[in-house]
């Protein structure tokens, strides 16, 4: 196992489209182990995509289980992932190991349905929402040569609510919303 170097903007290789994984062998599992070790070595990243370490195949790792109060499928290794269905949208702040010291607001689907293979090639499907769905969309973008900075919207235009919170009692409200 080894920690690999993370490609950083403006490295042109981050814009390339990664190829589907064909062989589910020991070499794949070793490369996945390196990818995970690299994810854990940096700042607290909830995900990493293979092209971020210069490996241009369709593999991502996502694990949002360390975030408090976030529902998730735990630690996921997604090989050849494909989003089949998107639903809703919300704005959220993102950063990236490949874009150090910058965060920005990005619109993502709230809920997604996803199919992917696991490291042994078994097909699985997932339904997910919120933070986990955001993380998966962020990582799959890497496989298609896209970074979150390609999708950033203005900080000043906060049109989309991330979530609806009932903040105030509505009875007797002096304010008409």
């Amino acid at each position: 196992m080894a920690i690999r170097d993370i490609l950083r903007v403006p490295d042109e290789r981050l814009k390339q489209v990664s190829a589907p994984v064909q062989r589910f062998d020991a070499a794949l599992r070793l490369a996945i182990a390196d990818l995970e070790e690299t994810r854990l070595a940096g700042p607290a990243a909830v995900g990493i995509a293979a092209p971020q370490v210069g490996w241009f195949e369709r593999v991502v790792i996502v694990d949002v289980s360390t975030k408090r109060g976030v529902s998730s499928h735990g630690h996921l290794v997604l090989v050849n992932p494909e989003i089949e269905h998107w639903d809703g949208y919300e704005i959220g702040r993102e950063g990236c190991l490949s874009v150090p010291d910058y965060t920005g607001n990005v619109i993502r689907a709230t809920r997604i349905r996803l199919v992917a293979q696991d490291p042994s090639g078994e097909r699985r499907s997932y339904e997910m929402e919120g933070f986990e769905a955001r993380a998966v969309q962020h990582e799959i973008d890497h496989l298609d040569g896209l970074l979150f900075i390609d999708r950033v919207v203005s900080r000043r235009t906060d049109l989309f609510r991330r979530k609806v919170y009932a903040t105030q009692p509505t009875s007797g409200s002096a304010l008409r919303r």
Partner: protein
Amino acid sequence: MLTLVGEDRPGIVARVTTTLTEAGCNLGEASMIRLGGNFTIMLMICGDLAGPDLERLLAPVAADLHLRVHVDPASGGLHHHVVPNIQVRVMGADRAGIVAAVTTALARAGFNILELQSDVAGDADRPVYIMNIQGCSERTVESLREAVAHLHAQGIAVDISPVDTLIG
């Protein structure tokens, strides 16, 4: 820190930054926005020119574009970003004192404002004040909500939610 304020028209940023670049200045972080129809920009500049030199350099452009120029010495550098963990959305019938009431309540709760934007929406008869604040707090969202709860009785809706920045 260079501040320019004036009448808005297309091409101001291009004219100003070209002048600065040709004089050997390096531009850093910048924030331009229209406020009440006025052009405003603040930008960090790094270079050998002192404040009065900068003002002299920009004087012809400023006169031409009807801009007022202000220069302050400021320290600055890269990697000073602080990531907000709390978003505050404020809305209320427009009247004096909304900003003071909200930000005072937040300051008492130890909240540090990183970004603040506000707008007046609605129509002339019933203007509505809308403000978005992003900032940092070590307190829980619940305790911040308690800190602003009294504002509801004054007709100010304050919505506080966490900002979970995703690093991936």
